């Protein structure tokens, strides 16, 4: 039990550290999508440090679990997690958003660990369906994880893929929604209402769980193989806060891709450093 508690603290600490890295690269480059990166951080930490079967030294390992960041703009958190997990040298992130860099504002396959180029919303789940079908055909036991934003769900292609996943009984496919309830214009419910979101996915034939998207043990639990229902794809609605971890960014749509000034950067660092201190 104690071991479990200390592991949970470690993961929380890891998430705080990743958030600190995100703030650094976003401030340094005056680029990125900080709000959605901060909301998805705990989900990525759960996946990359606990749930997924991966080998950072062998990113093309055929038995690995696959991950697709369908909300590709939230790249900052993804880069920081991949670097920290050892897929590439953290130093390489110094070139982020610079002329000619491989580290552009959306995932691309030039970066070790990134499976597919994304950035256009609504594509990831279809790709995941293809990977999951291939896994079934080849009797592989890898799983496919697709992280989507909630604003992204207005794309019709998401629902085409949702239908196909249930039709092909893809229980090796796990979709996660970063449900931070905000998109660039404002509240998702004002822009294009999604509720009742859980019922929508259930009616499409998915095994749906709703979790606190900042409670790493709960996320891990929902993502575990034990939560799988044979022949049914799984969907995790992770209830999150856009801008999580930095008080003045939380639940504020203007931080979708806001850029910090020097004072704001200082404040953000202080808040995160304080959190790291508490967790230590």
């Amino acid at each position, binding site marked *: 039990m104690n071991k479990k508690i200390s592991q949970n603290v470690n993961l929380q600490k890891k998430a705080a550290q990743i958030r600190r890295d995100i703030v650094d690269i976003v401030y340094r480059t005056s680029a990125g999508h900080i709000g959605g990166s901060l909301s998805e951080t705990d989900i990525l930490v759960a996946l990359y440090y606990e749930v997924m079967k991966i080998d950072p030294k062998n990113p093309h390992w055929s038995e690995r679990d696959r991950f697709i960041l369908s909300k590709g703009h939230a790249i900052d958190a993804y880069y920081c997690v991949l670097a920290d997990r050892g897929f590439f040298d953290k130093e390489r992130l110094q070139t982020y958003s610079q002329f000619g860099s491989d580290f552009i504002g959306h995932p691309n396959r030039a970066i070790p660990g990134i499976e597919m180029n994304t950035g256009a919303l609504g594509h990831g789940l279809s*790709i995941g369906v293809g990977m999951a079908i291939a896994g079934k055909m080849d009797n592989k036991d890898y799983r496919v994880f697709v992280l989507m934003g909630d604003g992204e769900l207005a794309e019709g292609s998401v629902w085409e893929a949702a239908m196909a996943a249930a039709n092909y009984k893809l229980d090796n496919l796990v979709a996660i929604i970063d449900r931070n309830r905000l998109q660039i214009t404002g509240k998702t419910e004002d822009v294009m209402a999604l509720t009742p979101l859980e019922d929508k996915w259930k009616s499409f034939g998915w095994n749906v769980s709703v979790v606190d998207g900042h409670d790493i043990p709960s996320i891990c639990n929902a993502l575990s193989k034990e939560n799988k229902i044979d022949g049914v794809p799984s969907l995790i609605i992770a209830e999150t806060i856009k801008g999580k971890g930095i008080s003045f960014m939380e639940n504020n749509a203007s931080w979708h891709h806001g850029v910090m000034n020097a004072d704001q950067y200082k404040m953000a660092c202080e808040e995160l450093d304080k959190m790291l201190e508490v967790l230590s």
Partner: protein
Amino acid sequence: MNKIHNRQVVCETLIEIAKSDKDIVVLCSDSRGSASMKPFAEKYPERLIEIGIAEQNIVGVAAGLAHSGKKPFVASPACFLTTRSAEQIKVDVSYSNTNVKLLGISSGISYGALGMSHHSLQDIALLRAIPNIMIVVPADRFEAENMTRVLSEYKGPAYMRLGRNPVEDVYSSCDYGFELGRAVTLKEGDSLSILTFGETVKTALDAAELMEKEGIKCRVINMHTIKPIDEECIIKAAKETGAIMTIEEHSILSGFGAAVAEVVVQNCPVPMKIMGIPDEPAIPGKSKEVFAHYGISAENLCKEAEKLINIKKNGW
């Protein structure tokens, strides 16, 4: 004379290749009938992936399959496959460089009487501007077979455009040295060159035969690969024949004629005539009627050739 559907040949060839290549899979969008893929579905039911009427999804799924080592052939009507899923082709196939083969069936004005929604007269224009995707069109059953075999080995994105109509043979066998990206000169001549692809190759050959009676020696070139285009062959034709006519079952805007013109004007400017479908919703009708309406008949091509030769000799 043989009149075989190219799509039927593609299916038969895929069945044969799939025997030894276990990674070949075919995806359909409720299109296995119109794509002539039913025999593949019967032979390899586990390798025919039905996606239903969802073209965006079919391309994304194919990209995911390709990423996992499969060799997906997506057989879906060209009109929907290319425009409805343009973004998936751009991002998931071309940009992600996945080994996906798109089979655009009933392309061009194959569905002539069904109206503009079913015509695919923009697909070449659209795909030509996307990097890293090959565009090929077979002229007859032999070329369809060659193309299918070569594409199953070629690792990378490709679009094969397939008309619905059965077509007459242009070749007498598969042994004519088919090579992706290398055009085939079917008839030598030095008065002018006709460059075309697909169903209109036969029309061009018929026109060249009529011209011969008038003493016009027309070179006929089958440009089966539209991208990457065979620049060398185009420049040679421009230099040696001094006039170029292109024919395409596509809008005359930004399509094949434009691709040829880009090469001609930058290397060896000569008088050109671009024949195709003008910038309007194409008139409904059977392919032959529609072609004739827009001047793509052997007789009219002769008249256009004479005009072009006159410009070549006397200037504009």
